[in-house]
């Protein structure tokens, strides 16, 4: 939520710390700060309010209260300090079908107001937070929500039919197929007619049973306030978190209001919001406040939780005395009664998140500061259990790495396979793999062209990973081991099978068991879960070598080029000597030099090398590579080496 520092000062008064201090305090003790920015005379702080605090802190009053808690001050001006009392009106009735869906519904009636431009201070307040000013009445509802956290909706009273001099509101569950016309998104564009599923809660014009708003999610076009509105009704209600959430997600309308209701906004809030807007409308729109109606069938009762001070210290790993704990809790507005051994704690009504002892322990911890928690390393104990999947994976890995195989981890998704997901990421990832063979085959195909680039003699790949299939009417999975090789760049070659067979044999020897691999085109796969479960349990893991210091470099995705050079060198010239001469001449585009051949004939030694060229940003041309090779030949000749 975007927070204006100047707005916080309305609540904090002179005790407000400087804006950067506010951001630091919140960051260390309450919420992550996404951004901190000076905007003209104000600072805007983007506070990432946690889901459990969305009921009280998606508001300037809530954030200011949090700052006051952290500084140990009290709010200079707190709109929640005293419960407001508003005169009643008989001009509105509310009929709530099921109080669980709507624990509270309030409405206030105003007559003779003037809809006009908002005063500059209000425009500024909204503008600094990136909100568009519409008119004084709409802005007032927006202002109260951003200030206190309670969403409001306003109706033109003259467009709302009256029966026997009474405006009749209804609250009920929607009927399947029923429609409601909603205000356009962000106040722009066209109204939208929404067909309902029958799970939503609706606000209705009771006299005609017409749906006029989607409770907690979006107001309707019914009795929409306009430039000439004189008499208005302001609604502030409490809606069921789960129903609001389902409705909002289902329709893809997640707006400020629904986000607040979803997180269990306190039913005590509407009254404070009404009191606030009554005052604001009088200030900026004139007219007369005729009174409110407050239907509150599910009255909120405070929850008191017993907190054991020993538990506080035991869980946080600190040693606070009880008085300090009590003082910290009281800073958060928590009423604490010290019963000797236990503390009876009651959170302020807007904190719907404080429900169990651990919630209060967290309050002590974060307000006191987690920097007071000292590191303690648990005393080492022997392992009570070995992971044989890991143990034997390591053993197999060691054999395969030794045989020149490199390890891959490929996608668990497949285009077409036995298990299809209900919700796919993409059409080619709609299923789960039931075998590793296809992925190994794809990886071999992809990599065979890179043997020169990577300096390999051939391409060898393995994977140990989970595969999925159906078994006895349920999805089943096991760990699969697969490996494959390609000795030729052209793809599978029957000769590959022989090389693969040798590897299978060495694995069998190493594990001391016959391995029943499925083999296809020099790719072998086996149910590895069956393998390790049949092997003996080991007492300890093999020692893991410390990781090499590796600095990864992004690789070029552009085509590489190879050039071979063979030459007669004088006796005593080593491969290293020759390599360094060639490399120095080949320039920066050379990425690898592989010594491929050496023989001696008639007292002369022939050395052959393969040079690989590649650029990070483009595909090289023949000309570029030939130019480099010309210098390589020149350098060799300068050494007196005769190129062949």
């Amino acid at each position, binding site marked *: 939520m975007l927070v204006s520092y100047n707005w916080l000062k309305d609540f904090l008064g002179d005790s407000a710390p400087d804006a950067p201090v506010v951001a630091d305090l919140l960051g260390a003790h309450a919420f992550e700060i996404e951004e901190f920015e000076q905007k003209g005379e104000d600072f805007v702080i983007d506070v990432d309010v*946690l889901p459990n605090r969305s009921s009280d802190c998606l508001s300037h009053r809530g954030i200011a209260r949090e700052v006051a808690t952290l500084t140990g001050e009290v709010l200079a001006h707190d709109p929640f300090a005293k419960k407001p009392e508003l005169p009643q009106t008989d001009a509105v009735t509310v009929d709530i079908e099921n109080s669980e869906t709507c624990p509270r519904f309030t409405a206030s009636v105003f007559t003779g107001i003037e809809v006009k431009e908002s005063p500059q201070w209000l425009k500024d307040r909204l503008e600094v937070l990136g909100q568009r000013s519409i008119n004084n009445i709409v802005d007032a509802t927006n202002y109260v929500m951003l200030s206190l956290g309670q969403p409001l909706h306003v109706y033109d009273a003259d467009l709302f039919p009256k029966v026997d001099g009474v405006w009749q509101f209804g609250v009920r569950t929607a009927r399947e197929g029923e429609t409601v016309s909603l205000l356009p998104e962000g106040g722009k564009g066209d109204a939208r007619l929404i067909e309902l599923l029958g799970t939503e809660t609706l606000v209705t014009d009771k006299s005609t049973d017409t749906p006029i708003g989607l409770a907690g999610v979006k107001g309707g076009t019914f009795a929409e306030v306009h430039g000439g509105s004189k008499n208005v009704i302001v609604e502030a209600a409490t809606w069921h978190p789960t129903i609001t959430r389902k409705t909002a997600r289902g329709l893809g309308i997640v707006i400020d209001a629904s986000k607040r209701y979803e997180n269990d906004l306190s039913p005590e809030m509407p009254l404070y919001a009404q009191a606030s807007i009554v005052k604001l409308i009088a200030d900026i729109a004139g007219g007369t406040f005729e009174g409110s109606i407050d239907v509150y069938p599910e009255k909120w009762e405070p929850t008191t939780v017993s907190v054991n001070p020993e538990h506080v210290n035991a869980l*946080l790993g600190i040693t606070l005395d009880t008085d300090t704990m009590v003082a910290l809790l009281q800073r958060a507005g928590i009423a604490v009664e010290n019963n000797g051994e236990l503390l009876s704690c009651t959170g302020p009504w807007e904190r719907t998140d404080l429900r169990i002892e651990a919630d209060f322990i967290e309050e002590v*911890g974060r307000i006191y500061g987690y920097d007071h928690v000292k590191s303690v390393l*648990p005393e080492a104990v022997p392992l009570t259990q070995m992971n044989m999947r890991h143990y034997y*994976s390591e053993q197999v890995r060691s054999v395969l790495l030794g045989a020149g195989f490199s390890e891959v981890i490929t996608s668990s998704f497949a285009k077409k396979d036995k298990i299809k997901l209900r919700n796919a*990421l993409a059409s080619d990832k709609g299923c789960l793999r039931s075998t590793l063979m296809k992925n190994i085959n*794809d990886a071999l195909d992809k990599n065979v062209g890179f043997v020169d680039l990577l300096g390999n003699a051939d391409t060898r790949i393995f994977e140990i990973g989970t595969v999925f299939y159906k078994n006895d009417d349920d999805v089943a*999975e096991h760990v699969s081991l697969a490996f494959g090789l390609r000795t030729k760049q052209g793809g599978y070659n029957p000769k590959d099978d022989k090389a693969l067979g040798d590897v299978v044999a060495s694995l069998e020897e190493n594990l001391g068991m016959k391995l029943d691999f499925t083999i296809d085109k020099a790719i072998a796969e086996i149910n590895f879960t069956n393998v390790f479960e049949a092997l003996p349990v080991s007492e300890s893991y093999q020692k893991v070598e410390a990781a090499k210091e590796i600095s*990864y470099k992004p690789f070029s995705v552009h085509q590489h080029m190879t050039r071979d050079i063979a030459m007669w060198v004088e006796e005593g010239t080593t491969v290293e000597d020759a390599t360094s001469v060639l490399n120095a001449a080949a320039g920066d585009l050379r990425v690898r030099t592989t010594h491929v051949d050496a023989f001696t004939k008639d007292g002369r030694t022939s050395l052959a090398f393969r040079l690989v060229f590649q650029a990070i940003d483009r595909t090289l041309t023949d000309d570029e590579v030939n130019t480099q090779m010309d210098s390589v030949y020149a350098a060799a000749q300068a050494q007196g080496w005769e190129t062949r």
Partner: protein
Amino acid sequence: MQKGHQHPLTQMISEINSIFAEIGFVFAEGPEAETEVYNFDRLNVPKDHPARDMQDTFWFRDDDVSEPKVLRTHTSPVQARFMESHEPPVRVIVPGKVFRNEATDATHEAQFHQLEGLYIDKGVHMGHLKGTIEYFFSKFFSGEVEVRFRPSFFPFVEPGVEIDMMLKGSDSKLANKWIEVMGAGMVHPEVLRGSGIDPDVYSGFAFGMGIDRLAVMKYGINDVRDLYTGDLRFVNQF
């Protein structure tokens, strides 16, 4: 024969296991196709609670399963599974593949690896969490490491924290700045109770972090998707 190259993720998992095994943390595992009950309910994520927004989930089709199942969105369900089948004290780590149904980019993959840690015993407190994480990172990055907690929220812990670490005095690119590395907290009493452990007797901490992110930190990998392409131009650098 030239030796092959091990994938950086399995290298790191081996290293992580050996660091935690030294202080008695068991390498535990669980299914990747997980029940809704273990993936959410047992971790105190109520039905339709906004906390489920944090995870966009791949679901199996009703025809393929005997009860609602998902591709696990975190390794945390193994916590509940292990606690159910073992009496405390419990010390486990759970490295494993997890899945989120979200758009992919250089820092996000729909499949990635997570490391879960869990320690349940009498008298386990947040200082143990701090000490364990400091121990792990100082070994993993071979240097002096400081960690700090910031408040956070996860339904399966209370208090919940975000953990930042700072590698001190080294010449590494990572050194001398706070880096957000994981979510953690003290195991929620409901989670303990749900697994048959009495929260009045036992307490514990849990943490979870991305191993892929650890690879980004350790090796400077610039695109996490490269971990899953089977491209040897990537793997052969390790």
